[in-house]
């Protein structure tokens, strides 16, 4: 557990934002927000997880995805959401997102979805997995997935919030996170640390970023019709 300490947030983060005007990139009747999320300080090198069960399939070690940072401090798996925007009706059940058990890890490691989205859970490993989803410690779903890859288990995510995903089948290192958002203005940063939100109604908002080990940061953002508002988040690593 202490091995994760390298990625713990220290002190206030530096946040900067600016407005750029680029009429060609966004649809009329709204604007966009784009930018990057970074981690300042030395690049963390989290120790991989020791595999303690089903080693014959899972192997000896598994990548620790709790803080993935590329050169230049670019932070992967940070969830950017717009705050202060009106809730939307939930997505219909037919909107689907896949969460796979693959190589004894959850794929993807971090998901953001609109409220109402159906989560499709699958198991591509030849070992038994279990997707146990909780919110503030209360179970939202707990589904067992036998080996073989044939089954897809569907669960509609009806309530907004941060969901914690674990596998109870002895794979204690398996973790994933799902951020369920009551609207469509959200993004998860890729390996390049970049995000963009499109079609945002003009107005003043808070823009929030959440990361599993670094916590949250917020900044003000103003969106103008037909323009892209640039935003940049910078977490600071504890040394």
């Amino acid at each position, binding site marked *: 557990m202490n091995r994760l300490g390298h990625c713990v947030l220290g002190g206030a983060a530096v946040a900067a934002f600016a407005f750029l005007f680029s009429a060609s990139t966004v649809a009329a009747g709204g604007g966009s927000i784009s930018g990057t999320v970074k981690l300042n300080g030395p690049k963390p090198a989290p120790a991989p997880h020791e595999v303690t069960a089903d080693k014959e399939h899972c192997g000896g070690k598994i990548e620790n995805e709790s803080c993935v940072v590329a050169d230049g401090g670019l932070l992967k798996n940070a969830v950017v959401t717009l705050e202060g925007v009106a809730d939307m009706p939930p997505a219909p059940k037919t909107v689907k997102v896949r969460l796979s058990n693959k190589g004894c890890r959850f794929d993807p490691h971090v998901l953001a979805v609109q409220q109402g989205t159906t989560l499709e859970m699958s198991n591509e490993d030849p070992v*038994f997995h279990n997707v*146990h989803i909780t919110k503030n410690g209360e*179970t939202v779903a*707990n*589904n*067992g997935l036998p080996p073989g890859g044939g089954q897809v*288990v*569907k669960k*509609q995510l009806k309530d907004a919030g941060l969901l914690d995903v674990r596998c109870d*089948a002895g794979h204690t290192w398996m973790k994933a996170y799902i951020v369920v958002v009551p609207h469509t203005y959200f993004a998860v940063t890729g390996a390049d640390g970049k995000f963009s939100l499109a079609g945002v109604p003009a107005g003043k908002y808070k823009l929030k970023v959440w990361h599993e080990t670094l916590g949250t940061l917020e900044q003000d953002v103003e969106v103008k019709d037909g323009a892209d508002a640039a935003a940049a988040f910078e977490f600071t690593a504890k040394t």
Partner: protein
Amino acid sequence: MSSRSNPASLATRLLAAGCCAALALASLARADAPSVGDPEKGRALIADLGCAVCHTLRDTQTKIRKDAPDLTFEGDRVRPDWLYRFLREPERLRPAIKGRMPDFRLLEPEALALVEFVREGLRDASATVPPEYRFKPGAPGAAEGKKKAETYRCVQCHADAPRAPKVEANDLAPRLEQASRRLDPNWLFRWIRDPQELAPGVTMPSLFYSDGEANFDGADQVIADLRDYVIAPGETHRFPEYDEARKRYPEITAADGRRLMVALNCAGCHPVRSLPAAKPLAPSLVTEGSRVKGAWLASFLERPHVIKPEYGILSGGTRMPGFALEPGEAADIAAYMERALSDAESDAVIPPAASELRDLRERGRGIFYERRCTDCHRIHEEPGGIGPDLTRAGERLRYGWVYRFVQNPSAFLTTRMPDLNLTPDEARAVAAYVLGPKE
């Protein structure tokens, strides 16, 4: 108010004969042995057992409502003959996994009443089993189910010694060896189908259904096969006592069971949708450590029904149950109560000097008989009434508390004992008599 007019007094008198035997056992309560338990363990045990459900305590934290099973589906879930036996011998029939179902020393008609209420009052008509998957004894699915149990790693959590290879984690879920005599087969089908639907948040994952839909074609057949394997056709065992009790007590109805469940405060530990919320219907224990002696308390906790047999007859069925405590556990609880549940004012009362005890007791005896305390309290063979037997009160009660209590009973307990307007001087004498040896 005369005790003679109280219907409860008759029951108490009937019990008086049993008291003699009980008192012989009560000699286990050695008055002066110091409490040797670990108060911190005692505090934790009080939280685990859920004492605060019935008693007023200082630290009322408990997770008993999470540990005790939800009884909403109990009428569908367990076989009535198994339940009847379980209610009468909970610890022997099914040693606790987490929570500890206490033994209420239920009489036959009481256990029957509870079973009848669970069967009729807690039945959930909304959930059904498709007709083709209803249980038929001797169904051929068991062999197929055995293979499926391996695929779904059932034994990873359900240790099942006679049928499964040894597994590491065996404390996660109930052993299945009792399933065939305990569980209703049709309920088991519904349970395996989607445990998260029946009991949201339960440890067991849903393997076959999610959001009311099957995860794959033919899921119901796999569920039925697993069910048949677990139930093991042909191995079902019946407890005949239940049918015998029904014949013996035909007048017992579900309504009797409902009343008893309220009186026993079952809803204090078990979520039961159709019962009113539990109430703290047992004595407050906030100053119990200053009232009774630790050694007596430890003995009482080990066998409450022997030491205070009047419980269960008074107050419409409410009684202190037994928790199958080990002697060490009872001592831990007593040690905690002595330290944490005390009353400084009672503890500060200075007991009479040895030199004045003899005279004081003699005076106290005079007051005791003059005020007709014996109308309610039994001393030796004198019959007494609704009050506790005081023959050996010195093993149980502490001086400071008795001295203060007899001056103003209603300030200390919810009690039927009238205020006798004793002066402090008279109270000293009465307390000395009550706690002393009696000819």
